[in-house]
């Protein structure tokens, strides 16, 4: 499966974020390169939540960082509100950051331990010289209240005095201080217990609604991604596998990898759903041929998923599948997708 192909991109004038053919490579010892992200394209409309899901090493976090230009991608374009970020100089890029914020997986280490919460929260306003000190503290009080924390008991304390869940709330409050348009959420609940995770996910939904945010939600947890996303992108080893809206992806996955992920997740989900009296879709099917993650320094030729794919055939080693539309807003990069014509058949049909 390849990320090459931009069939999944929609109207550029509508998208608030548009990623085009982004490649991120890192140097590896011995003069080699780690192909962390290899030709990935997708877009996000304002007010949408795009979920990016995949296992470790798939490049989802790296993609998020590339969008944020921390650091900028090796090649490709990232459009934010129609402006190509890769073409901006340092000062221009800096000023874009007020509208493009991020929250991290480990909230405690993203908060400077020597400062008080009040200082940490008003830091964005201090950086951009917004308002007087009194104004800033007022806004801090407001934002902390939004995330259900009491300013008076919290503001003079330091991050290490709080639990992970509370620190994540503080990070969210900080991200909201500058009234951003887009927040990139890089595995924001992966380090949290289930009950705290639920609080934070509900909070993100509330904030999104209240402030008209657009979210890019990166996670390895399928159930979490489904819960928050409108549209979902599945990644494997630096490439895109499938792009679809959340309900369709989970009800009718087309890419074998998507199905494998769902099969692995659903076992736990099923029993829990049964306990709650609900049915789960049945994801029985062929198991993966192997489960080792191939090397990102020398990935498999052709489709990168082929070494694990139960449906792989000769062509998969030779020709990288390109993203194509299966039906409305459902794209897959696979020669033999589930429940759909193979790429050869589709090519014949269109001729």
């Amino acid at each position, binding site marked *: 499966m390849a990320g090459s192909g931009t069939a999944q991109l929609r109207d550029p004038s509508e998208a608030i974020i548009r990623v085009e053919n982004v490649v991120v490579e890192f140097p590896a010892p011995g003069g080699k390169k780690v192909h962390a992200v290899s030709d990935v394209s997708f877009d996000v409309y304002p007010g949408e939540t795009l979920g990016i899901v995949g296992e470790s090493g798939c490049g989802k976090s790296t993609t998020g960082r590339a969008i944020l230009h921390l650091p900028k991608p090796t090649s490709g374009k990232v459009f934010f509100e129609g402006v190509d970020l890769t073409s901006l100089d340092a000062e221009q890029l800096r000023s874009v*950051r007020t509208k493009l914020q*991020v929250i*991290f997986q480990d909230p405690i280490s*993203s908060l400077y*331990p020597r400062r008080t919460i009040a200082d940490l929260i008003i830091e964005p306003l201090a950086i951009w010289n917004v308002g007087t000190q009194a104004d800033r503290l007022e806004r801090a009080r407001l934002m902390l209240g939004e995330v259900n924390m009491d300013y008076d008991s919290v503001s003079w304390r330091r991050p290490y005095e709080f639990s992970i869940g509370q620190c994540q709330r503080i990070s969210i409050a900080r991200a909201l201080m500058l009234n951003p348009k887009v927040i990139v959420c890089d595995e924001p609940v992966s380090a949290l217990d289930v009950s705290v995770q639920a609080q934070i996910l509900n909070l993100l939904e509330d904030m999104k609604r209240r402030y008209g945010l657009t979210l890019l939600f990166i996670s390895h947890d399928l159930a979490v991604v489904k819960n928050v996303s409108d549209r979902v992108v599945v990644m494997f080893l630096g490439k895109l596998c499938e792009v679809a809206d959340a309900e369709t992806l989970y009800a009718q996955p087309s890419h074998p990898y998507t199905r494998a992920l769902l099969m692995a997740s659903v076992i736990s989900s099923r029993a829990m759903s049964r306990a709650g009296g609900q049915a789960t879709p049945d994801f029985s099917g062929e198991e993966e041929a192997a489960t080792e993650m191939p090397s990102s320094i020398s990935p498999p030729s052709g489709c990168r998923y082929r070494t694990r794919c139960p449906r792989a055939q000769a062509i998969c080693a030779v020709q990288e599948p390109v993203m194509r539309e299966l039906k409305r807003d459902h794209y897959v990069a696979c020669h033999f997708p589930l429940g759909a014509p193979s790429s050869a058949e589709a090519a014949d049909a269109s001729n």
Partner: protein
Amino acid sequence: MLAGAKRKSMFSNMGWGFWVAVGICMAWILVAIFANLLPLYSPDKIDFNCLLTYGKFTSAHPLGCDNDGRDILSRVIYGSRVSLIIGFASIAISQVIGGVLGILAGYFRGLLDEILGIISNTFLSFPYLVLALVIVTFLGRSELDIILVIVTLAWPLLFRVVRAATIEYTQREYVLAAQALGSKPSRILRTLLLPDVIPASITYGLVGVALAIVAEGALSFLGQSVPIPTPTWGNMIAAGSQVMQQDKPLLIVPAIAMFSFILPINYIGDRLRSVLDTRQGVL
């Protein structure tokens, strides 16, 4: 960390040895500053009586006399002034130079880091004796020149320490978070990196002071340090080593004086460094 817990001050656990060392160093520093107020002979004053009691401890000259008839006690006290000034000044200047360059190299990396690396490595790879001799030959042997010699030798070491610390702290996620908020590099350096880099630099610097004082002694042995009659611990030891048989006090007294300062200050720097390292682990 438990909610509500407060961190203990770092100084509550340093141990009695640490505070004894601090006391000794403070004592020397005070003595050096207030040497004028002490009832001592002038360090330059040549006293013929002293020459007569050369090599012995007398009530008039409790620590003996040097080979020119000057009182060793007062010379050791006044010598502390020069040695300490050389030690602290040279390291302080090296910290400023090495520190500023180190933090820039460590944060920005890239071409700047490579160039500074080449420059500092060049300084480091120079045989230090040759460098010292060259500087002293062309510029002279005043205290300022000796300080300059030590600075040229010490700044690359402090550059490396600060650069390594900066690289490590820059990888912390709160720096990434600050960049994501649009913070300028100058602000990040100032508010996030300096507060952690400076303590690290200071602790290495204290150890450096000990080394600088010893370096001055080494230069004295080459005859390249501050010339007599200005007393330094180093040049007294050097002179004493020449007349070891006849005038043991001239060798032993300044050696003990130097030792009694550099050992505690070395210990202070080392203890601070180990405490700081474990605290950074907690951070």
